[in-house]
């Protein structure tokens, strides 16, 4: 199962709810709510979260890798 946002999608099967992406996001666009990670409109698609995620649960929607 996936949570899809404008720029990124989060694989809920892989996500460990650890918050690595939340603390790293330079735009403060990611959050942990009810232990589920979500993204809001502040996301600019920079892709930092795809790299910091220890398990690779976050993908850029356009399929490009990394930053």
């Amino acid at each position, binding site marked *: 199962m996936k949570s899809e946002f404008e720029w990124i999608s989060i694989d809920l099967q892989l996500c460990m709810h650890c*918050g690595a992406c939340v603390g790293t996001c330079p735009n403060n666009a990611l959050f942990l*709510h009810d232990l589920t990670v979500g993204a809001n409109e502040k996301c600019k698609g920079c892709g930092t979260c795809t790299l910091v*995620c220890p*398990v690779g649960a976050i993908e850029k929607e356009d399929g490009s890798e990394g930053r």
Partner: protein
Amino acid sequence: MKIIETDIVVIGAGPAGSTTARYAAKGGAKVVMIEKRQEIGSPVRCGEGISKGLLPKMDIDPPARCIAREVVGAKIVSPAGHVLTISEEQAGNEVGIVLDRVFFDKYLAKLAADEGTEILLKTTVVGLLTENGRVTGARATSIEGDLEIHARCVVGADGFESQISRWAGIDTKLNLRDITSCFQYRLTGIDIDPDYCEFTLGSAAPGGYVWIFPKDEDTANVGLGLQLSQLKNPGEIKRTLDKFITNDERLRKGEPLEMVSGAVSTCAPIEKTIGDAILLVGDSARQIDPITGGGISNGCIAGKIAGETLAIATKENDFSERSLQRYERGWREEIEERLYLNWMAKEKLVTLSDETFDKIIETLSEVGVEKLSTLSILQAVKKRYPEIVAEFSDLL
């Protein structure tokens, strides 16, 4: 909507939050501590290593179940396999005790509760309450519905992913070089030396290290942290650890009991951790040792100072930034210099080649080193490799 009135609301019930709550409540403040998870201390997000010296310093005497294992020292392993073995006294930080955080965190929260702290679990803070720009509490969702906590001071002890700091406008933004992303397994059935914590440096973990912290005779926390600025592909952290385990015959036959992921800051001390009616402590205040990535001891040390400051602020009815300066000054006196020096050393360490790590660790293993400090290490290496020491000259 339910409304709670209190002096202090502490967001996050990790070691820093609980210690802050404990000392604030002990000094007479009414304290509410909020934890988003349903259980304090779980799931673990930590390698669980801590130095032996901390416990008496923190005025804690945790029951035996909080301590999974006491080790006698550390082994530092170079990329080519040279091993430096040091005693727990020489190692200092983050070596000596491997905790069981599931129990340890509950014990610290119990100490807070014993002093009168009210604890709310499975409660997520979704925003701050403000009046004319001044923080007046927090909004939360909980199993009993929406909640407003009206408080005279908000404590952000909400970890690496801190939202409180951002909402309050305190700059805790991190450079990609100052973020280490981690993955860990608790592996059982492995063939380790259960009396030593082991650290492997070099290209096995670029900009970080691989750790093996024994939990019992044949079980250990086996994890790795990598510097974010050196990462190139999604999922690299777990994959790199999996590769390390597969290539290590002691580990590859192990079975996992637990998986842990997370990130830590490895930055220089930040400018400011307070504001009017707001205070940050622990990982959210970036009080992490930049070399080890350890945060429990610093969080507890800063938490005690925070709690004592808040108790005074309650008595004086003054939660202004000026009043909270006691905390800002206090924690800096205790740990700021060490954080700064270790950040400088980290900035250097992340640039070293495997060959340099091999030279340093081989030399130290032959000539010995009194204490695992940057200075003693450089002194020990100087005779044989003056060119390496020259690279560190600005640290001396």
